[in-house]
């Protein structure tokens, strides 16, 4: 007897929207798409309330490829839950923000295609966050690339085609590297006689560490680092961000890139704890390099969208640092960081996107004095920017603090260096704000930016800003949801928190 597949329905709702938009008239597509996204949001909110309020455990498991050990297994633990929440919130916001964008016939594939592709991304992203089977996760992890490629290449800038191909090649190359690792796990799992790719079963297997498992781990990590992305395999992100529409980039950086860090927890920590411990010094150094490389590249960037992409690389460095420090504070912090980064950076991309659509240029030098003519736009940019550089009072502060505190308890030196990264973050955000918004507007700027944000643009931003402010002052609900997951991965990794005064301070 199978219970009602609540989680499958959650993933399939956007797919229904895809079909509806494909079959509808072009004019109706936007409305249908938004309605679908809102229904998905409401449904997900219901599921979250139900699972948390009534401690209802949601999960599904059906045999899918038994001879390879794979099953259609979905799970709704804290990690899945927060990522699902982020996804379902961000998608309608993106659709509202891109509402007016005029993609007529000459814009390659039309408005209908854009809505369909965004919903397809949502469907695949939800399934990959929900899946609790290595092969199933891999499938959706890869599948997200295709609609995202079309979003970048089809509805992007002049060089969207090249950026899209770069994105796709990196994504598929990373995916195939991961496929090698997945096949390796299949072989190991089959060899052990216990055929299952369920993450829980894989964790229980406790592969003995051998050179081959280390190779498998390295392949997994490279694939996830390409997705997240970390230095030096980040080079596709600035191009993709520069050439995509603001909404696409918000989805890409806010949701899809999280698949990389999400998988680091699920796969690296969950299945290969020994190898994770073995590699963690190198990985943490690499994360530090990412933090500073991203920050300095952002300072040096003349293009607003590239600048934001580089800041994200810096933030991903923090997330990875927290994951591989393996303390309960830092893992919780990293998971929470993933959500907050999606909210703050998503809002930042949208706000900057509004400015760019008015000014018609993403160059830093094309602006100045915007605060005088469009105070709301400036205000939103500042709030989102400060949230992205972890100002206390925003939720990013809580997560960044947890990460650094957790890392400190294990590796004080690394934590000390990482803290410097937050200082640089303040530099790139405030400097950018100064260049864009302060001073006297030039005539070109006042001509181009003649109107402040309209109600539609505000409606898109407000939910995100509210979310990171509320979670900033009152993070307990989110942290409570995350806590059991953190404890689970701590126990899988066989790690205990080092005794430290700072750890208490994190709560």
């Amino acid at each position: 007897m199978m219970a009602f597949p609540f989680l499958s329905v959650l993933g399939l709702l956007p797919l229904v929207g895809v079909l509806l938009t494909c079959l509808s008239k072009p004019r109706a597509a936007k409305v249908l798409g938004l309605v679908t996204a809102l229904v998905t949001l409401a449904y997900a909110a219901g599921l979250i309330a139900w699972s948390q309020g009534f401690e209802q455990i949601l999960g599904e498991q059906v045999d899918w490829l038994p001879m390879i050990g794979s099953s259609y297994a979905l799970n709704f633990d804290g990690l899945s839950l927060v990522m699902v929440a982020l996804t379902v919130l961000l998608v309608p916001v993106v659709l509202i923000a891109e509402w007016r964008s005029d993609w007529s016939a000459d814009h390659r594939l039309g408005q209908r295609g854009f809505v369909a592709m965004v919903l397809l991304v949502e469907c695949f992203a939800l399934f990959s966050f929900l899946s609790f089977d290595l092969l199933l996760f891999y499938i959706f992890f890869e599948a997200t690339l295709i609609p995202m490629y079309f979003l970048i290449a089809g509805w992007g800038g002049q060089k969207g085609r090249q950026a899209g191909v770069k994105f796709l090649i990196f994504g598929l190359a990373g995916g195939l590297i991961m496929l090698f690792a997945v096949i390796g796990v299949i072989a190991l799992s089959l060899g052990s006689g216990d055929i299952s790719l369920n993450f829980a079963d894989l964790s229980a297997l406790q592969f003995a560490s051998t050179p081959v498992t280390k190779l498998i781990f390295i392949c997994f990590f490279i694939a996830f680092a390409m997705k997240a992305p970390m230095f030096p395999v980040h080079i596709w992100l600035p191009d993709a961000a520069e050439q995509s529409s603001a909404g696409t980039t918000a989805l890409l950086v806010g949701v899809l890139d999280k698949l990389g860090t999400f998988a680091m927890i699920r796969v690296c920590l969950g299945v290969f704890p020994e190898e994770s411990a073995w590699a963690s010094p190198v990985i943490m150094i690499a994360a530090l390099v990412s933090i500073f490389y991203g920050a300095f590249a952002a300072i040096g960037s003349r293009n607003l969208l590239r600048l934001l992409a580089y800041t994200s690389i810096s933030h991903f460095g923090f997330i990875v640092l927290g994951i591989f420090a393996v303390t309960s504070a830092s893992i919780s912090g990293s998971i929470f960081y993933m959500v907050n980064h999606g909210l703050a950076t998503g809002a930042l991309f949208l706000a900057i996107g509004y400015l760019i659509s008015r000014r018609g240029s993403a160059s830093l030098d094309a602006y100045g004095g915007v605060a005088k003519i469009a105070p709301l736009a400036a205000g939103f940019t500042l709030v989102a920017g400060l949230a992205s550089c972890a100002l206390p009072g925003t939720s990013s502060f809580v997560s960044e603090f947890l990460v650094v505190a957790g890392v400190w308890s294990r590796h004080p030196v690394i934590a000390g260096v990482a803290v410097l990264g937050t200082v640089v973050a303040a530099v790139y955000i405030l400097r950018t704000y100064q260049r864009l918004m302060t001073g006297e507007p030039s005539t070109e700027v006042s001509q181009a930016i003649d109107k402040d944000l309209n109600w539609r643009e505000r409606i898109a931003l407000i939910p995100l800003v509210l979310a990171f402010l509320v979670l900033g002052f009152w993070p307990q609900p989110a942290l409570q949801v995350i806590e059991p997951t953190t404890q689970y991965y701590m126990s899988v990794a066989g790690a205990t928190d080092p005794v430290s005064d700072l750890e208490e301070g994190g709560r």
Partner: protein
Amino acid sequence: MSLLEFTAPSLDYGLLLPFLIVLGAALVGILIEAFVPRQARFASQVVLALLALIAAIGAVLWRWSVINLVDPSTDGSGITGSVIIDGPTKAFWLILFGFGLIALLLFAERRSHGGATAFTPMAAAVPGSDQEKAAAKAGLIHSEMFPLAMFSLAGMSLMLAANDLLVLFIALEILSLPLYVMSGMARQRRLASQEAALKYFLLGAAASAIFLFGVALLFGYAGGFAYDQLAWAVTDGSSGDPLLLAGMGMVAIGLLFKLGAVPFHSWVPDVYQGAPTPVTAFMSVCTKLAAAGGLLRLLYVSVGGMRWTWQPIIAGVAILTIIVGVVIAINQTDLKRLLAYSSIAHAGFLLVPVAGGLALTSGLMAGQVGSVAAVAFYLIGYGLATIGLFAIIMLVRRQGLEVTDLEAWAGIGRRHPLLGALMTFFLLSLAGIPLTAGFVGKLAAFQAAWRGGYWWLVLVAIIGSIVAVFIYIRVIQVIYFKAAPDLREQPHMVMPGVPVTIVLVLCALGTLGLGLYPGPVLEWLQAISDFIVPVHTP
């Protein structure tokens, strides 16, 4: 068993029925050419060929559970016959007849060609001559294409069941000769087509000669043609005998040539490009399938005892084939040629599980997927996507002619969204992207190789797959995002006739269905994937 003695074999005609039906249909097809009036010939050939293939599929299913040896010797020596109908034979037969059916539907397509077939109205006429024009005007049709294809299919099905080197050779010739003829029958660019046919024939003849020489050497080694005798000689005698090694090498060359593996691939691009598109579709799938099936039985049954010797060699060929295929495919400007190189690359991927050699005799556990099932599934995924793409190529035309120049396809996906979506889907399946049959094929193939101990080969194959992604992404990019070239007339999609529509629907549904829910098919293939290996009673 001396060659000079002859005892009438006892044949189980019921088991042989599928092969006999196909062969019989080919013979009846010749009679139709002779006796049926011209107006009715095409239709009757189509109906006969399709019905025969459906009947052949039915005949396989009819005696499904009976796995038997045709021509079993009654003296209890355990010698199996020269033709063997075991699980893999039946599985490959079903796949072969299925793809044969799909490919023959493409042969029957007329609407998109403005009422003509894809074949020349009069093969005997000099290209460009008045005679040819008159034939085209009179609406002549070479309906012999159908019996030719049926003969070729008969040869292929015999090859899948061959358990004897001589039978294998006969099968090889039966399948090859009609293909040589069919390759030269293109309606457009006839000179290129004839050149392709000649090239194919000359190289094919050389490959056959090498194959036959190998057979002679193996006869000298084992004292017989049957796989059993060879297998016994291998287990009893020295497996390092130069006669054995040279003979096996030469026989394998004959099969690898048909498979299109490097370094025996040089015919593939020219022939695939020159041959009529339906014939290319037929060759690229059915020939590969027969060659792969024949190679599997040869390697696993007759020389399974010395697999440590041939596994590294096959692995080397696989690596070479993958690298050459993907690297050269990247720069191709002609779509058919690009697909030709891609098919070479796929031959390489196909050899990966073959080299892995994961079978019951080498540590395969029950309920898991071994090499034979992996190869079969891989072929299904590859075949569906490839035939689908060739069907699409038949539909894109300019002034009534097929356009295979990739540049001319720029933007066609935007002008014809459905065609673009289908083509993208098939290309992604070939690239091995999840949610397609191609992905599951790759997964099954590579995991079999890994568990056979060839994880480094999987690593190389994965790197090859990464490069292969470029090939297909490039095409997707061209059909959607490249600005259309400034041509007098853009190519456009013509409305497909019923046959091509059926083919496209079948291929798309198959690719999607096997990508989403491959479990039952994989399980079924695995359940019947054991070769009958001769019992050793010296």
